[in-house]
C-alpha cells in the first residue's frame, strides 16, 4: 500500500512539474483525438442528415446496424485499418502505417457509428413540423439540414463530445496501427498499457490521472449540454 501511495506522489509531481515526456504524450493524445472527432463529424454529420431525411427500403435495418456498431471492439477497427494500410494492403504505398495519421484514420472509422447514430437521434428529436416549416419558408435541402442541426445543436454537441470521449480512451486501435512508438505515436492509453506491462507504476498513474481528468471533463460537458435544451 505504501508503494502505491508513493507512486501517487511521484505521479502528481510528474504532472505538476510538467514532465516533458508526460506533456508530449498528452498533447499528442489531445491533437489526435480532436482531429479524429472533428474529421468524423465533418464526414458523418452530413451523412447522418442524409440518412435521416431519406426514405428507402431497409432504412430501419441500416440504422439498427449502425447502433449495433456503437461498441465496436477497438482492436477490430485497428485490425481492419492495419490490414488496409500495411505494405501488403491496398493503401500500403501511402506509408501511413505507424504514424499518427493512421491512428486518426482508425479512430474515425471507430467513431463513425457513434456520430452517425447520435446525429440521427438528434434530428429525430427535433419537432416533426420543423422540416416542413423551414422548407415551406423556402429553404433548400441543405439549408433545411443546417437549420435542423442548429435546432438540435445541444444534441449535436453531445454527439461530438461522446465521440471524443470514445476515441481518447481507446487503446486497441491506437496500438495496432500506431505501434506505440516513443516520440511519434505514443498516446496516453498506449503509454499506460506499456507502463503497466513494465511495472512503471508512477508514470502509468500520472498518465491515468490525466486521462481520467480529460474523460471526466468530457462527461461533465455532455451533462451540461444535455441540461440545456433549446
Amino acid at each position, binding site marked *: 500500500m505504501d508503494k502505491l501511495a508513493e507512486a501517487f506522489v511521484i505521479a502528481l509531481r510528474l504532472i505538476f512539474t510538467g514532465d516533458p515526456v508526460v506533456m508530449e504524450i498528452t498533447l499528442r493524445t489531445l491533437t489526435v483525438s480532436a482531429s479524429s472527432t472533428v474529421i468524423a463529424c465533418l464526414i458523418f454529420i452530413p451523412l447522418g442528415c442524409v440518412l435521416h431525411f431519406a426514405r428507402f427500403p431497409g432504412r430501419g435495418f441500416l440504422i439498427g446496424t449502425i447502433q449495433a456498431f456503437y461498441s465496436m471492439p477497438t482492436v477490430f477497427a485497428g485490425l481492419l485499418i492495419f490490414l488496409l494500410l500495411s505494405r501488403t494492403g491496398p493503401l500500403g504505398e501511402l506509408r501511413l502505417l505507424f504514424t499518427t495519421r493512421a491512428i486518426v484514420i482508425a479512430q474515425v472509422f471507430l467513431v463513425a457509428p457513434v456520430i452517425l447514430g447520435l446525429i440521427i437521434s438528434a434530428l429525430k428529436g427535433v*419537432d416533426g*413540423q*420543423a422540416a*416542413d*416549416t*423551414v*422548407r*415551406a*419558408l*423556402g*429553404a*433548400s*435541402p441543405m*439549408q433545411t439540414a443546417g*437549420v435542423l442541426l*442548429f*435546432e438540435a445543436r445541444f444534441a449535436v454537441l453531445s454527439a461530438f463530445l461522446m465521440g471524443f470521449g470514445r476515441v481518447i480512451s481507446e487503446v486497441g486501435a491506437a496500438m495496432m496501427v500506431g505501434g506505440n512508438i516513443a516520440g511519434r505515436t505514443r498516446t496516453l492509453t498506449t503509454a499506460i498499457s506499456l507502463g503497466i506491462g513494465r511495472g512503471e507504476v508512477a508514470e502509468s498513474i500520472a498518465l491515468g490521472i490525466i486521462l481520467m481528468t480529460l474523460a471526466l471533463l468530457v462527461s461533465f460537458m455532455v451533462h451540461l449540454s444535455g441540461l440545456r435544451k*433549446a
Partner: protein
Amino acid sequence: MRLELRNVYRAFGGKRVLSDVSLTVEQGDFCALIGPTGCGKTTLLRISDLLDTPDSGRVLLDGVDCAGCRGRGRTMIRRRASMVMQRPFMLSGTVEKNIRFGPGVRGKRLTGDEVAEVLAATGLTGMEGRNARTLSGGEMQKVAIARAVVTKPELLFLDEPFNSVDQGAKPELRTLVGRLHREMGMTVLMATHDLADALALSNRTAVLSDGRLMQAGETGPVFGNPANLFVASFIGMKNIIPVAFENQEAVAGELNIHIAEKAEGNGFIHIPPEVITISLERPDSSQRNAFNALITHIEETPMYDTVHLRTGGLALQAVVTPQSTGHLGLQRNSRVWISFKATSVRILA
C-alpha cells in the same frame, strides 16, 4: 400565381388520402378548403406547396407542371409560395430571427424598416426581441403569418391557421389575413373547418370529404346551393328531410310537400329555415305548402330567433326576427301555421 391540381391521388401505406382531386384556384382568389378533420386537407395543401409528391396526377403552378420537380428547381418554385401550418413551429431565437429567416435563405437581408413594416402589419410591433417560443398561441400564429408574407409570396397556403388560437384572438387574425390578401394581391388557399372563416374571407370554396372533392365553386353558391347531402350537412344546415319522391311531391311522414321539379325514388330535401313563414292563421294559397305546426321551443338571440316546430311527425326550424316573435306572440306550445314556396325547397342528391 395560379394553382391547378389535376386528378391527384395520394395514399399513405395503403390508405387512400386523396382520390382524383381536381381543383383550380385562379390568380388573386381566396379559396377556402373546408371539410371534416382527417379528410385530407393538410395533404392537399402539402402537395400543392410541393412539400409532398402525389402518387399520380399533376400539380400546375402558373401552368408549369411541378409534381415531378426536383432539387434546385423545386426549391426555386417553392420560394414563390408560402405556408402557415396549424401549430406553428417557432425557430429558436427571437421573433425578428423568425421573420428574417425566409428572406435569409433567399440570400436577402431585410432593412430595419422592412422588418418594422411587417411587424406593424401583423400587430407585433415592439415584440421583435421576444423569444418566439415564449409567446401565446395567437402571437405565435401572427409571427408565422408575418414570416410567411414577408417574402411577398404569390401563393399563400394556410392550414387551419386559427386552430391553436383562442376565441378572443380569432377575429383579429381573421381580419389580418383578409387584409393581407387584399393589400398584397396574392392567391390564397386556406384549409379550415370553421365555416365562419370561409364565409368571412373567401370568394371560392372547395368541400373535401374523405379524400374526394365534393363541390367547388364560388362561396355563395356553394353555401347556398349544396350539391349533395354531405356538403349540406357539413355546412350545418337545418331542415334536411329524407323523402320519397312522387311526381312533383316529396312525401315525408304525413306531409306531402310540393316541390318545383319532377323527381323519383328516395332522396333528401332541404327547406332553408329562413324561407319558412310563420302565421297565426292559415295563409292564402299563393304559397303552395302550408302546414299546421306546434312550437316546441324558441331559441332567442339578439339578432334572430330560431323557432323549433313539430309538424306531421317532422321536426323543423324556422328563423324569425325577435320583433315577429313578439308581434305574433309566439311561445312554447303555440299552434301556428307554417308556409313556404315549392320553389324554395331544395332537392339534394
